């Protein structure tokens, strides 16, 4: 025999009608276990309802409803605005941030120096070492 626990909850919530309601009532009249279960659920619900209602002090959740409800109503607008903001930040970063540098002037000078060293004119006339330079003020 199956015991209709879900139908008991639905019955207590007032959601059972017609044949289902009649079937449950007929079952409860002959099933002590289900009757006891229904009585237990009714007692728990009564105990919860008897708990005192506490009022939150003002300022604990300021204007929560006012803030949340408009966001829900304008959800698409906010998502669009956020996407636009992200795109704007990336674009500005792309403009302001210098591109990554792969080659340093030291490397270029070395390549030039290597090639110059093959040149017949390579001699003290061609020697350049930037790091050795003393710049006059």
């Amino acid at each position, binding site marked *: 025999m199956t015991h209709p626990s879900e139908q008991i909850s639905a019955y207590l919530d007032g959601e059972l009608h017609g044949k289902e309601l009649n079937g449950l009532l007929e079952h409860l009249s002959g099933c002590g276990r289900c009757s006891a279960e229904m009585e237990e659920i009714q007692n728990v619900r009564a105990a919860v309802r008897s708990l005192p209602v506490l009022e939150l002090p003002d300022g604990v959740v300021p204007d929560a409803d006012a803030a949340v409800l408009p966001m829900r109503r304008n959800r698409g607008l906010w998502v669009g605005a956020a996407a636009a903001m992200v795109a704007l930040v*990336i*674009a500005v*970063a*792309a*403009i302001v*941030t*210098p*591109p*990554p*540098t*792969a*080659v*340093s*002037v*030291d*490397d*270029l*000078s*070395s*390549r*030039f*120096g*290597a*090639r*110059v*060293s*093959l*040149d*017949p*004119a*390579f*001699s*003290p*006339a*061609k*020697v*350049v*070492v*930037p*790091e*050795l*330079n*003393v*710049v*006059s003020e």
Partner: protein
Amino acid sequence: MRKLVALVTAIVVIPASVATAADLDELLERSHEASYSAEQIISCNTPDGLRDAVVRLAQDGVDIWIGSTASGDVEVAAGSGGWTLLRGGDTVSSASVGTGERADDPLYSVEDEAAFLFLGRSATTYNLVRDGVLRAKLAFDQETGAMVNVTTFLEDGTAYCQRRFISFDSAAPDLASVTPIEGETLRQLEGVPTTLPEAIAGFDRLDLYLDDDGSTFAYYSDGFFSFAVFETPTTVSLPDGIAVQVGESVYERSFTAGQATYVWETRVGGMALVGDLPPDLHESVLAALPESEAPGLLRRLWRSLFG
């Protein structure tokens, strides 16, 4: 008797006649293979102010060691297509090229040979003339062939750079302890399409190289001055560079003692010019290269995100 005196005077006073470009090759070749130790002062009057340096040199044949007199931890070993910059004994940067072409027909003539004493030693000076303009005065030590004094000039006759030995020892230095050239040899490209011209303002493109980072560079020479033009996939940073307008375009520029560097952006990447050519030639050279142009927004966005 008066005719004889006049003839003798003429022989003594009148400088040697104009020599050929081949003579310049011989002079430079002998200097390129000299052996000595020296201290050299370099002083250049650039458009951005005076740049000067004092360096120690040791040359043994085609190998040169360069060190600082002010800071002992920076040195360079160079020669035979290699260049290594060291700081505190550690390699900062290095490069190597296997082979290189020579300028076929230098534009210079050698004029007005004269003998004199330099640092108490016999030396000979030559004027280097290009297209009728004095571009350099070269002084060579007669015994070793070393180039002991060089002054380069702008087109208007103003001195641009002087490189002068202030001490000289003709004994061959011991370069056995010099750090060997490091780094991979750059590949020379032949027959590859490039945006870099074959000749610019009298400078011939002698060769073109490809580096592992995807950048290429071309080497240009007129037989004495030379420069390299680099094309890189990304931009080049130039510490201490200043923005200058040359011709119609804006560049970042930096001068050191004897070397000018320009960097700029193009639509497809970065470019740089490094060389010792005098400043009055910069505009005509830069005008012949891909122009400075800021990349579009999408390109900059792409570079920022993905390099």
